[in-house]
């Protein structure tokens, strides 16, 4: 009686182990495209924000002139995007900018109010205001979707999808 029970147990244990082993093998087979982990030093990504508020009194949007660089990536961008905030709203809804891993990306932010743009994880920051547009330059080395927000206003203004 007890022997029989144990045998049933042994058999079914085996079946289950087989099932889960194959599951684990499956996972490891699929996950084998693991990239060699390249350390992305937060320090390196730290922004060199320059505060340049020197005498711009022509209040109109003159984007090309008042570009505000945050992180220098001295290369021609593979992709450039623009986002405009008017009256506390992102014009045209929340955009999601899709780029490929390794791309050099340039995002220009225009806003009718003074604030600070922050792209999470990449940790780029740039000042923005009616007379100053924020330009965020990054090399998209980390995959994922990253939120960018206005600090004082406290809402998301775009998402950067790196895949």
């Amino acid at each position, binding site marked *: 009686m007890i022997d029989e*029970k144990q045998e*049933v*147990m042994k058999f*079914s*244990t085996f079946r*289950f*182990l087989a099932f*889960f082993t194959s*599951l684990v093998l*499956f*996972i490891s087979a*699929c*996950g084998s*495209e*693991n*990239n060699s*982990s*390249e*350390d*992305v*030093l*937060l*320090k390196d990504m730290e922004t060199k924000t320059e505060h340049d508020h020197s005498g711009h009194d022509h209040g109109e949007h003159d984007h090309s002139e008042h570009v505000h660089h945050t992180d220098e990536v001295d290369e021609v961008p593979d992709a450039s995007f623009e986002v405009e905030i008017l009256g*506390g*709203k*992102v014009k045209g*809804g*929340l955009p*999601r900018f899709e780029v490929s891993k390794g791309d050099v990306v340039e995002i220009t932010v225009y806003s009718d109010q003074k604030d*600070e743009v*922050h792209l*999470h*994880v990449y940790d780029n*920051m740039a000042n923005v205001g009616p007379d100053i547009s924020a330009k965020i330059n990054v090399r998209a*080395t*980390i*995959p*994922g*979707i*990253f*939120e960018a*927000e206005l*600090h*004082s*206003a*406290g*809402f*998301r203004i775009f*998402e950067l*999808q790196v*895949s």
Partner: protein
Amino acid sequence: MTELFVFAHGVGGRLDLPLSEWQVAWAAAVALVFSFAALGYFWHKPLLKKLSLGRPAFNVFIKASLFKIVFRYISLILFLVVVVAGFIGQDNTVANLAPITVFVIFWIGIAFASALFGHIWKNLSPWETLGNLVDRIRVQGREEETAPKWLTSGWSALLPISVFHWFELAYHDGASPRVLGWWISIYTIGLMTIAWKWGWSQARKAEGFDVLFSALAELSPFNVRGTDSQKPKKIYIRVPFVGVSNYEMTPSQLAVVLAALGGTAFDGFSRTRFWSEIIVGRTKWELTLFNTIGLIWIVALVGVAYHLAGKLGSRTTGDPKFSERFGASLIPILFGYDLAHYFSLLLLEGQAFKVLISDPFGRGWDIFGTSTDAINWTLISAGAIGWVQVLSIVGGHLVGVLVSHDRGIEKFELKEAMRSQYPMLAVMVLYTMFGLVLMTG
């Protein structure tokens, strides 16, 4: 710039990439085929309960309790450090130790560790330590009052879980260190007051995290049985995940599991394009209001779906305790959801813990020499994260179906057992498909 960073989901700012459509389609197909196979081709005699007993591995050294005491006090010290950091550390979500410890190390880390190693929270919980202390200093001679119904029924455990979800997912300032400091303090004082009045063994029923982590611990391949005095304690090793088939749930425990499932689902939902377009531009209390409505809506959806399945099952099988009987099959599904949503958070954002623990109060300390370490954001590839997500959602579904099938066979005649599975399969397929859709962003 030390303004408060605002995060949408506890801590974050990074989301996983959406799954590709073909991945999701395959996952859904596997889940569906497996569910139907369960009706016709699975075993006809209960199997998992026996498996869940496992085999004795080795005696637990009673003196290993020294080990336990060390962990218990490390945990208590960490708890106190986190509360203090919440109050006096930098008032900045990413630069303070409290948010990362609460939302990642505690909420996700302990949940995963419970599923892996079993009932560890009982040995680590600072509330357990403090509660036992309160028990010891209570006036022993006084007449024992009987605890009120709201406590003994176990339903009070739902409160801390719901409040936690609200802070994590809905309240706009929920990840602020100060808010967390207050929240932990109020919860601790509340629990200890209950312990003072009716004893810790009663107060523990209101410790929602203990209820939730205990449910997840039933999935563990390790199981300790026996008491110190009678039989020596032994560790039994069993097949992973089958332990839940031996787990009888009360309605309140079921509710806690469903609330956790609903909260995790809303977390996924709030990351979709659909939701971010609804909340874009909304801030402060307006944002809180929208997220609160969304949270309640999704939790209700998850809860009502199971309630209806339970009612239908009761009617077709005549079993009034249908919902509770099959509740255990939701635990692997919850674990699958948890893994899918939070695995990368623990692995990537979790690294911030080792940085911040070196300088817990933001005073420029470097206790462990790790305060200037960098976070390795490419520790695991986006592709690997995607596969873990798909496999954990589908894996949770498969185990859920197995457990539900086994429970049906155990209780009913074969034909009725099959009939009992229709509502269960329906609700599980619903959760799984919903989970997969959320993963497509």
